[in-house]
């Protein structure tokens, strides 16, 4: 089933390439159908998943390159399943959002589906080589999506994105190879290496962790490796921004969760403090930098850095509550940030043709429904209780407090800053008079039905997860406990 999930978009992509390029309706239709089927498959996985059970499920395993111990090895736990669900949903919504793209439609959707294969592959691969292949596969379509369909500075942004993350992943590859040769098991099996990793010498673990850190930190991104993000998010077409913010950032955090922390637990303990510190810096720094932006989309982009800081902090604190909180933030941010980018990049931009905060205003009155939805997104993003953003941040702080008391107190300043720039954003975009909107627009159409199709599912999920987070937490609980257990046992072991 996982194989179907991962490779169906690839098949769809190939079919698109065979179609004539001027049949836009067909191209869009097939892309939508494929990504909709992907959502259904993910839901089917969810329905068949046995929660409360430790270990991987839906495992598929075959020999691939036996001479060096590479396997075709797939499986999911509660955390990766949740990420798969977010990925397939966000891709479907990005597909629908991108109907407004008129140039090279065929190529765009072929790349988008290829991207989906890569992203899903990253979340279900359990073999390092396979993981690495998918990881790199993600880069190429995203490079073209930014570089071809992006904004005015698209070439700079695309190249920066590509080179920065490529540099990170090459270093990660060094880490993978060091792990492979260091353990001497002759396998790239992630779970087997997880067993063997803790037995590596402490200093070697530290260096391998460093390699993984650099690879993942760029992707998350963690301060100071974040500057590709504002450029990429701003220049990418809306569909691309939605996927970048919603899914791609989660790959880095997932790497920490799946690889670096459980495989190198002693090193993880040494890295906890620096990692958490960088997380807290990201929270505050991202919020302050967001406040300084004049471009609305850039403001949203910087807010992602701030939010991902919570993920870093929670993962670094290594308690069940903090890890659950961190993963919850990943899921929640995976829903909220696409909503924000969708509103800013499509609903507002396609009508107003500007994103500059100075030129905006009065949208509450001009586009009442869109205004309310944006206000919803703003409050979700600033962590209002009752919506999903709060739950993740609350559990992250709750779980991290016992480990990093001072850091948590410092990071809580971020809650005020986050509220400040979000409300300021709201004041400048939504409030005020209709005349505040520069540029002499005629009457504006409110959010359209197709746009609601994109926004409403995200809103419902954000609300449901915020009011009743129990099921999602339950889904990932065994996986979280497993991680915490591995790290704890190993650290006790290493202490001897």
């Amino acid at each position, binding site marked *: 089933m996982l194989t179907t999930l991962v490779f169906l978009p690839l098949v769809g992509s190939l079919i698109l390439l065979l179609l004539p390029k001027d049949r836009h309706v067909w191209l869009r239709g097939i892309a939508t159908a494929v990504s909709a089927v992907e959502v259904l498959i993910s839901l089917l996985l969810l329905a068949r998943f046995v929660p409360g059970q430790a270990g991987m499920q839906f495992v598929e395993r075959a020999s691939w390159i036996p001479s060096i111990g590479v396997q075709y090895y797939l499986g999911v736990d509660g955390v990766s399943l949740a990420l798969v669900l977010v990925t397939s949903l966000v891709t479907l919504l990005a597909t629908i959002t991108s109907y407004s793209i008129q140039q090279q439609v065929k190529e765009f959707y072929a790349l988008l589906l290829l991207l989906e294969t890569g992203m899903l592959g990253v979340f279900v691969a359990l073999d390092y080589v396979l993981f690495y292949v998918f990881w790199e596969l993600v880069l190429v379509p995203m490079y073209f999506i930014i570089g071809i369909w992006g904004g005015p500075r698209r070439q700079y942004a695309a190249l920066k994105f590509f080179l920065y993350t490529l540099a990170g992943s090459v270093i990660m590859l060094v880490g993978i190879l060091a792990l492979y040769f260091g353990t001497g098991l002759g396998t790239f099996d992630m779970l087997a290496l997880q067993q063997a990793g803790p037995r590596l010498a402490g200093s070697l673990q530290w260096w391998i962790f460093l390699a993984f850190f650099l690879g993942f930190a760029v992707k998350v991104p963690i301060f100071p490796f974040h500057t590709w993000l504002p450029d990429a998010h701003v220049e990418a077409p809306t569909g691309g921004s939605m996927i970048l913010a919603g899914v791609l950032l989660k790959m880095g955090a997932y790497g920490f969760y799946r690889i670096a922390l459980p495989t190198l637990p002693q090193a993880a303990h040494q890295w906890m403090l620096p990692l958490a510190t960088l997380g807290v810096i990201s929270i505050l720094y991202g919020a302050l930098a967001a406040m300084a932006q004049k471009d609305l989309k850039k403001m949203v982009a910087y807010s992602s850095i701030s939010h991902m800081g919570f993920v870093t902090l929670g993962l670094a604190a290594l308690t069940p509550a903090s890890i659950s*909180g961190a993963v919850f933030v990943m899921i929640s941010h995976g829903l909220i940030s696409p909503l924000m980018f969708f509103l800013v990049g499509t609903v507002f931009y396609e009508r107003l043709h500007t994103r500059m905060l100075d030129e905006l205003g009065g949208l509450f009155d001009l586009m009442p429904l869109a205004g309310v939805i944006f206000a919803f997104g703003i409050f979700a993003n600033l962590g*209002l209780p009752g919506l999903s953003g709060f739950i993740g941040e609350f559990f992250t702080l709750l779980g991290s407090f016992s480990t990093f008391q001072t850091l948590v107190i410092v990071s809580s300043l971020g809650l005020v800053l986050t509220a400040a720039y979000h409300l300021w954003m709201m*004041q400048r975009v939504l409030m005020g008079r209709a005349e505040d909107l520069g540029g002499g627009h005629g009457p504006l159409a409110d959010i359209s039905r197709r746009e609601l199709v994109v926004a409403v599912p995200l809103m419902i999920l954000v609300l449901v997860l915020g009011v009743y987070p129990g099921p999602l937490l339950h889904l990932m609980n065994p996986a979280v406990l497993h991680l915490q257990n591995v790290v704890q046992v190993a650290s006790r072991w290493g202490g001897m």
Partner: protein
Amino acid sequence: MAQWAWLVALFPLLAFALMEVAPGRLRLRRDTLGTVAVAASFVVSLAVLVDVWAGARAAASWQWAQVGPVQIPMGWQVDPLSAVMLVVVNLVSLMVHVFSLSYMEGDVRYGRYYAILSLFTFSMLGLLLVDNFLGLFIFWELVGLCSFVLIGHWYEEKANSNAAMKAFLTTRVGDVAMLIGILVLFAHLGTLKYGDIWSAAQSGQLSLDVITTASLLLFGGAIGKSAQFPLHVWLPDAMAGPTPVSALIHAATMVAAGVYLVARAFPLFSLSPTALYWVAVTGGFTAIFAATIAVVQDDIKKVLAYSTISQLGYMFLGLGAGSLVAGSFHLVTQAFFKSLLFLAAGSVIHAVHTQNLHEMGGLYPRMKWTAWTWMIGALSMAGIPPLAGFWSKDEVLLAAYRSPYPILFWLALVAAFLTAFYITRATWLAFFGTARDEQRARHAHESGWRMQLPLGVLALLAAGAGLLGASWFGHPFTHFIAGSVPAGTHLAEPEPAGLVQGLALLAAVAGIAVAGGIYGGGWVSRASLIRAGRPLYVLLKRKYFVDELYGWVFVKGTVALSWLTGAFDRYIVDGIVNAVGWLGVQLAYATGDFDQAVIDGAVNGVGQAVEGGGRLLRRAQTGYVSTYLVTLATAVVAVLILLVLRR
């Protein structure tokens, strides 16, 4: 009936949900829907109170989330404190709903206004009902959200949206402290449920330091929400919202939440003398601090705003002095007389279209109903017996008098004098004397039953609600409220002191007399008064310059810091990235040059060398056999010589 208490919160929530999703027709009737819902809630809450008064209790809890091994339940409970507050909140909210039918008629966002009122009421009721700190925090923030939306109701004006932001952000500073307090409790006990925490604290599972720290951090939240110094600055600006909203915020929702928090967590606070001390000091100081500002305000709503801050100070003083009853009793009576005063002010503003007291005057003959109800509220707040405010303020003063820090009693007594003074001043300026603006006064009139009825109902309560706690009937409220805390909680029940009652009454009468003399009797003119105390007047008028200070330090400071961060990010962090990129490109060019000059040069060089060598060798190809032979012989000889030499 107590087991149905959750219905109280459900009705407004359903009303809100219906208003948001209901199509066309129903959307037009949002005012009715909201009013009916809160009326239903009110009826249920009354029944619940009766039941709880008779000794009933109810609670329910269910599994909400699990993180790792930790279970996080969510549940509700109803006990005397929450039962009383449910009735108060519903009643005031209902009155505000009815009043707004007329006051907000024809407003651009009339429907939305009612939707948010429902959400606001729901949030506050939820806050009262939950049985744990996480739930409290959730509803606490929702209350903040609703007040943000309602304060910024007329967001066309930037001043209004600024006021809304100020309210949200200022209270959020307190919320962060509160959140950390919650984290501290969880870190030590692994639970957030009130009952578990109280029993753990009482059984000595928590050290005194932890109790003090947690209590003070929680109190931080209360300081923000209940607008105590130094986080009081948002409340006066919150006047930017519609006046009925001010009545709601100042009486039943929002600011009441902070006092409720301390009252709710009283089993925790009462274990720490240090925490109680700071609660009392903050309250006592704020009571007199805000009262002095209220004396010079010209805007009728600003007078009431500072008066609320001051009255909230009384409540904290009572709680901090160790008397749960005093604090919560004053919370209840203040809810009635303050919502009454605000709605009466609304009635005046609606009639004369100004908030400036100096543009009013002489309204009494034209608005007798409003004037009389206002005066009942004013006398109640001033503390004239047997009106409600007298009884509750007396409890507070008594608690302060018997507390370890009687200086606070004297501060509160001065504040009581000031209270009577400023409310008499406002009363006179608004309703009596000559009309300073003939045009406005001539057109003033009452605005119909929808505005008069709430004034009447609230006037009755502002007058009579105090009897619940009156000594005449043996303090029924005291015994009732004591049932809200676990047995063993230390509740100060101070000995009555005739001196306190006498002084309190004296302060109230003196305040009324002095203000009456100055403004009614014309003892001194306003101008000469201002001239005599110019520096003091300016200091008070500018509210001790706290807003200016915060504006410079926090607002401008944060914005400046964000600019610095933005610039740092762009020029330094990203600068380094671009520099690395640039270096890479330069290196590539350099490599290209190197490649062309050296590597490729070497290749070309080899080629040239071969070619040159070939040209050289061609000379040897002479075609003469003899030359070849000579060459061959020479070579053989050379080889032989070499062989010999090697030996």
